[in-house]
C-alpha cells in the first residue's frame, strides 16, 4: 500500500526553498539598485562636456583675436558641416574610446527686425539619423558678432553688431 505521508515534507521543502531564494534575491538587490538618480548622470556629464567644448571653442587663441566659434558662426550656413565636425572632434578628444556614437546638431537663434526670434540650422545638411526625438541634451553659447552671419534667412537689419545664440543638440545613438 502506498501512503502519502511524505507529501507534506516535500511541500515544506519546496516552500522553504522558495523563501530562501526570495530572501537571497531581496538581500542582493538591496545593495545595488538602479535609481532614478543614476539615469540623469550620463545626461549631466554629456551636458557638461558639450558646454566645456563650446566654451573652449569660444576662447580666442590670442588676446584680441577672433575665436574659432565666432569664425564658424560668421560663415553662417556657408560653412556646411565644419562647425559640427569641429565640435564633435573636440568632444571626442580624449584617451580610450573614440566615442563614435556621439552625434550633434547645431542651430542658431537670432532676432529678426520685427522683434521675433528665429532658429535655423547652422550646419546643413543635418545628421542623417536625426529625427528630433532623440534623448538629446541642449547646450548653448552666446556669440557676439560685428556684422550679419551669411546665409541666414530673414535677418532683416542692415549689418549691425548682434548677439546670437548657438545651440547644440548632443546625443549618443
Amino acid at each position, binding site marked *: 500500500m502506498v501512503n502519502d505521508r511524505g507529501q507534506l515534507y516535500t511541500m515544506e521543502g519546496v516552500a522553504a526553498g522558495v523563501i530562501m531564494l526570495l530572501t537571497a534575491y531581496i538581500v542582493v538587490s538591496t545593495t545595488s*539598485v538602479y*535609481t*532614478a*538618480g543614476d539615469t*540623469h548622470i550620463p545626461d549631466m556629464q554629456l551636458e557638461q562636456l558639450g558646454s566645456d567644448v563650446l566654451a573652449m571653442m569660444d576662447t580666442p587663441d590670442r588676446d584680441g583675436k577672433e575665436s574659432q566659434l565666432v569664425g564658424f558662426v560668421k560663415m553662417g550656413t556657408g560653412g556646411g558641416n565644419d562647425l559640427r565636425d569641429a565640435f564633435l572632434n573636440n568632444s571626442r578628444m580624449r584617451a580610450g574610446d573614440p566615442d563614435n556614437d556621439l552625434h550633434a546638431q547645431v542651430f542658431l537663434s537670432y532676432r529678426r527686425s520685427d522683434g521675433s526670434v528665429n532658429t535655423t540650422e547652422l550646419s546643413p545638411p543635418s545628421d542623417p539619423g536625426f529625427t528630433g526625438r532623440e534623448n538629446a541634451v541642449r*547646450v*548653448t553659447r552666446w556669440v557676439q558678432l560685428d556684422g550679419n552671419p551669411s546665409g541666414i534667412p530673414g535677418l532683416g537689419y542692415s549689418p549691425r553688431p548682434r548677439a546670437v545664440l548657438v545651440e547644440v543638440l548632443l546625443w549618443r545613438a
Partner: protein
Amino acid sequence: MAGMNEDGQWIVLMGLLAAVGLFFLALVINQSAIVGQTTAEGVIEFPKNDIRDLREAVFDYTDKFRTVPDSDETKKNVQKDIIAISLERKNAVVDFSVGGPQEISGRNLHPIEIRYNNGVTEYHETVYY
C-alpha cells in the same frame, strides 16, 4: 484546552520574525528606487551653464560698448537681442544694465547688474567689471 501540545509556538514566532524582516527589506528596496531623484532633478534643473554663459555675454557686451552712450541704437539692439533670445529659447527673463565707471580700489570699473529668472531659479548679481 488542557493537554494541548505547545511545541509549534516557536515555529510560529520565528515565522513571524522572518516575515517582519522581509517586510523591512522590501521597504528598503521600495524607498531606494526614489533615492537621488530630487537631487538629480535639482542638478538638471539648475541652469549653471546658462547663467555662466549669460555673464560672459554681458561681459562681452560691456567690453564692446563700455564707451558707447546708452542712447546708441546698436547698443540697444544687442541688449534687445540677448533679452529676446533668452526669453524665447531659454524661457528665462533676463535683464542687465551697465553703469558708469566708478573708482574701486584704484581701478575704474563698471558696475554691472544682471538679473535672471527662469521661473525656478532666480539670480541677481552686481559685479564690478
